[in-house]
């Protein structure tokens, strides 16, 4: 016993800190990403207070925010700072690194039958660069002038000129450094995921026997690998403009009492570069969430996912089209109207594979035998948010309609539901489902049920009314809607949204409690708690290096043989050889 403890002490640093084990790195991404997400969520609560009760004093704000909220009222420029960091953190730190970092790391080797990632060292490096990036982003909260405040898209010249907004000084520099590191971290991770999926599949694990989670992670990694370098380039050019006197993005500017010596640049160039990443980024968030949902819906319905090949096809189609639609963020930038027409066409095409996915989920539920685990509830919630948010995308993607709702709360409602909620629901569903694999213990289901219902009520309560604000013409990123009489009616709507936001945030307290309680006190997990087919449930509950104590199991069938006629059980793990004359759907 003491020998083990001694061994443990020696290895502490390498087991918990500089681990190259994909399971530990997955947990590191989960905890770090979620902590960032918690900060991002609390930020939204602070600015929701201002929007719901403009100008009212909340002394508690002053007590921890100091001169950001003199007399308990958030100032206008710090409001923008919080909006900016909320967006940055949620999109990149929680739903990109947190989501992919957790589940790609955990599941790619486990579901494919690999001992670890192709490069454990690169994987560790990816996490630690991400960690430094988080630290720098958080540090930017404490510098003079405050953190970046130009919106998460940081369009220059607002982000390029400290004279334009206080956050474009040191805060913006740190934002750019943090994001540059973040991109490096994502690239290291992405290459690793792709190589592992392509090369380290166990015997019998053909591409069409891979669970849909892995397909989603693979395409996500490819998207990231192609698009993130473009953002890095955009960021580097912005750094040059800010610090070294170039004018890639700047031209004809007069600010703070003087004309700047900049000429010939174009802010529109930045927008093109940004959205070339920015749009695929939406699918970098969505695809893993959809992959997780596919897995959970099939397992919990005790039924094969309907249209496995169509699901793969739709993932590939969405991934491909996502590179051809970035211009729909720029319909009203003065871009050539012909380009606008092209982007409308490609954008609305995305609805086709998305519709296929929704119909396939519905058909999977049809005549299923549904077991309501908390993970399944969130998966069903995701299907609902994906439909609700996806449909309003048909309005925003149509250039003629976009003119009038562009940059209004209609957009805020749309992308929070389709990307924010779907991404978060997918991530939470995944945590409930794979918690036993991550921590060897089970989460509390009662708290999980309460968490789901409060969250979906709170979330729709926050984001659905935003469509109405948008249709009333309320622009986003307004510190208050008090300055124009045409928005006088919006007071009650904003107050209602804020109340629902408080409910939704409070509900996350249940989840945080559940995670930490279950991590230490939860009941010990059985090896295959959801009676699932995939390979990760054939590994021992206690984590070991190399994942399987003996030989890596061989795969004989696709992962969705649930309730197959002729079988005694309602599931047949992938490791079970095909019976005489039995047909494999995946091969």
């Amino acid at each position, binding site marked *: 016993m003491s020998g083990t403890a001694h061994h443990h002490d020696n290895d502490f640093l390498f087991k918990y800190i500089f681990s190259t084990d994909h399971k530990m790195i997955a947990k590191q991404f989960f905890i770090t990403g979620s902590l960032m997400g918690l900060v991002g969520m609390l930020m939204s609560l602070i600015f929701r207070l201002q929007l719901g009760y403009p100008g009212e004093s909340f002394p508690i704000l002053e007590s921890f925010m100091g001169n950001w909220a003199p007399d308990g009222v958030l100032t*206008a*420029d710090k409001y*923008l700072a919080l909006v900016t960091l909320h967006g940055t953190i949620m999109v990149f730190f929680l739903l990109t690194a947190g989501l992919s970092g957790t589940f790609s790391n955990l599941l790619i080797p486990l579901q494919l039958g690999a001992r670890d990632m192709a490069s454990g060292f690169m994987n560790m490096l990816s996490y630690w660069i991400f960690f430094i990036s988080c630290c720098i982003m958080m540090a930017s909260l404490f510098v003079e002038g405050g953190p970046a405040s130009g919106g998460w898209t940081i*369009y220059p010249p*607002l982000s390029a000129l400290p004279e*334009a*907004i206080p956050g474009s000084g040191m805060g913006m520099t740190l934002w750019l450094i943090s994001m540059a590191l973040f991109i490096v971290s994502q690239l290291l991770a992405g290459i690793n995921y792709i190589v592992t999926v392509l090369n380290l599949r166990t015997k019998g694990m053909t591409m069409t026997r891979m669970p849909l989670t892995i397909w989603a992670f693979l395409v996500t990694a490819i998207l990231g690998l192609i698009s993130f370098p473009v953002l890095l380039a955009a960021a580097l050019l912005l750094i040059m403009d800010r610090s070294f006197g170039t004018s890639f993005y700047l031209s*004809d*500017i007069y600010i703070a009492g003087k*004309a*700047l010596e900049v000429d010939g640049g*174009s*802010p529109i160039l930045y927008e093109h570069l940004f959205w070339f990443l920015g749009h695929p980024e939406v699918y970098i968030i969505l695809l893993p969430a959809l992959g997780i949902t596919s897995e959970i819906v099939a397992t919990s319905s*005790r*039924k*094969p*996912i*309907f*249209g496995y090949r169509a699901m793969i096809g739709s993932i590939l189609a969405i991934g491909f089209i996502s590179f051809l639609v970035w211009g729909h963020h720029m319909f*009203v*930038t*003065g871009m050539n109207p012909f380009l606008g027409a092209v982007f409308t066409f490609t954008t*609305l*095409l995305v*609805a*086709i594979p998305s*519709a*296929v996915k929704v119909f*396939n989920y*519905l*058909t999977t*539920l*049809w*005549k299923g*035998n*549904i*077991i*309501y685990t908390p993970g399944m*509830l969130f998966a069903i919630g995701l299907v609902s948010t994906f439909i609700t948010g996806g*449909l309003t995308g*048909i*309005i925003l993607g*149509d*250039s003629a309609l976009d*003119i*009038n709702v562009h940059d209004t709360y209609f957009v805020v409602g749309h992308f929070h539901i389709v990307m924010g909620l779907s991404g978060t629901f997918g991530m939470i569903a995944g945590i409930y489902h794979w918690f036993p694999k991550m921590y060897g213990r*089970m989460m509390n*289901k009662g*708290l999980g*049920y309460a968490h789901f219902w409060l969250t979906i009520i709170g979330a729709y309560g926050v984001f659905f*009314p935003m469509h*109405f604000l948008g*249709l*009333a*013409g309320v622009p986003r*990123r307004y510190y208050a809607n008090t300055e*124009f009489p045409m928005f006088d009616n919006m007071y009650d709507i904003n107050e209602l949204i804020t109340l629902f936001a408080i409910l939704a945030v409070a509900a996350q307290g249940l989840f945080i*409690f559940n995670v930490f*309680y279950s991590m230490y006190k939860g*009941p010990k997990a059985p090896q295959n708690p959801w009676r699932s087919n995939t390979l990760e449930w054939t590994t021992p509950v206690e984590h070991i290096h190399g994942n399987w104590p003996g030989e890596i199991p061989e795969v004989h069938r696709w992962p969705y043989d649930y309730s197959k006629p002729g079988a005694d059980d309602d599931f047949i793990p992938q490791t079970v050889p095909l019976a005489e004359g039995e047909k494999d759907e995946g091969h």
Partner: protein
Amino acid sequence: MLNLLILIAVVLGIIALSKVVKVLEQASTVKGVQPYEVTERDNKTQANLMPVFLVLYFAFIVWQLVAWGDFMLPEAASEHGVVVDGLMNTTWIIIIPVFVITHILLFYFAWKYVYNKDRKAEYFPHNNKLEILWTAIPALVLLILILYGLSIWNETMKPLTAEDDPVEIEIYARQFDWTARYPGEDGKFGKADVKLIGGVNSLGMDSTDQNSWDDKLVKAEFVIPVNRPVQFYFRSQDVIHSAYMPHFRAQMNCVPGMVTRFNFVPTKTTEEMRDITGDPEFYYQLLCNKICGAAHYNMGMEITVVSEEDYEEWLAEQKVFMTVEGNTSAANETTTETEEEKNEQLSSL
């Protein structure tokens, strides 16, 4: 002190919750069921909550429509706006049934097919006919929407020609206000350059360009005539702004270093719109709709739409900006200055 109390309350709450969870989990173990196992009762409860939630969700949406329907933008006040609203309504007519039907199916299936240990799920891995069907139908519907949308987009974005006899206005944005410039009787805007900005010459107008001599600038409010095309040119001095005129279904970004354009035909005067909305205080609003700095939320300008005659009258009353030689406006005294003097005068402004 209050913060400390809140902290203590939170900590006590967490401890209490842990105890409750522990007791419940032990109670379940005593009954011989693992606390994490989803029981028949759990399944029933969750399945029954599904339709309850769906009804609540739909009821919430209907309530919002009833309570807030009147707060939405009034009918479009521009020619293309009416067409755009038609497209919007068509799109809603397509979207809403899809939304309702898929949600009913989702929550109905979730309720109906709850776990029953005596039943086996249907093994239904794929069906090519179904999959082709629900790829083809969305594709067809979207194709119609795309063609319909693009025809309107192309029409809306079509540049005006001289035959349209447009009113030309330059909308100039800076942190944090708007200026509207009318080209004056010559119908031409004078040149401008950021390097000439100074004092009251906030647009950097070039006094050496004769076209600028009769240009008129207005702030806080600008006026346009009804039923005549208005050609807008947008410029910005510092960061990206966006000129958003929601009542006209019009929006275009103002980007430093370039001139962007938009045109529309206003169809309702401010007075007419006051009758329609029943709001005697109603006026059209230009808003900034691209994050531009701390006072972004307060950057607006009023728009007044009047009859052609009232417009001409109003425009004649506006003063030209530069009081320099060659000025054709009667509202200004003619002076006899040299080019140099003019520049001097401008730089001292």
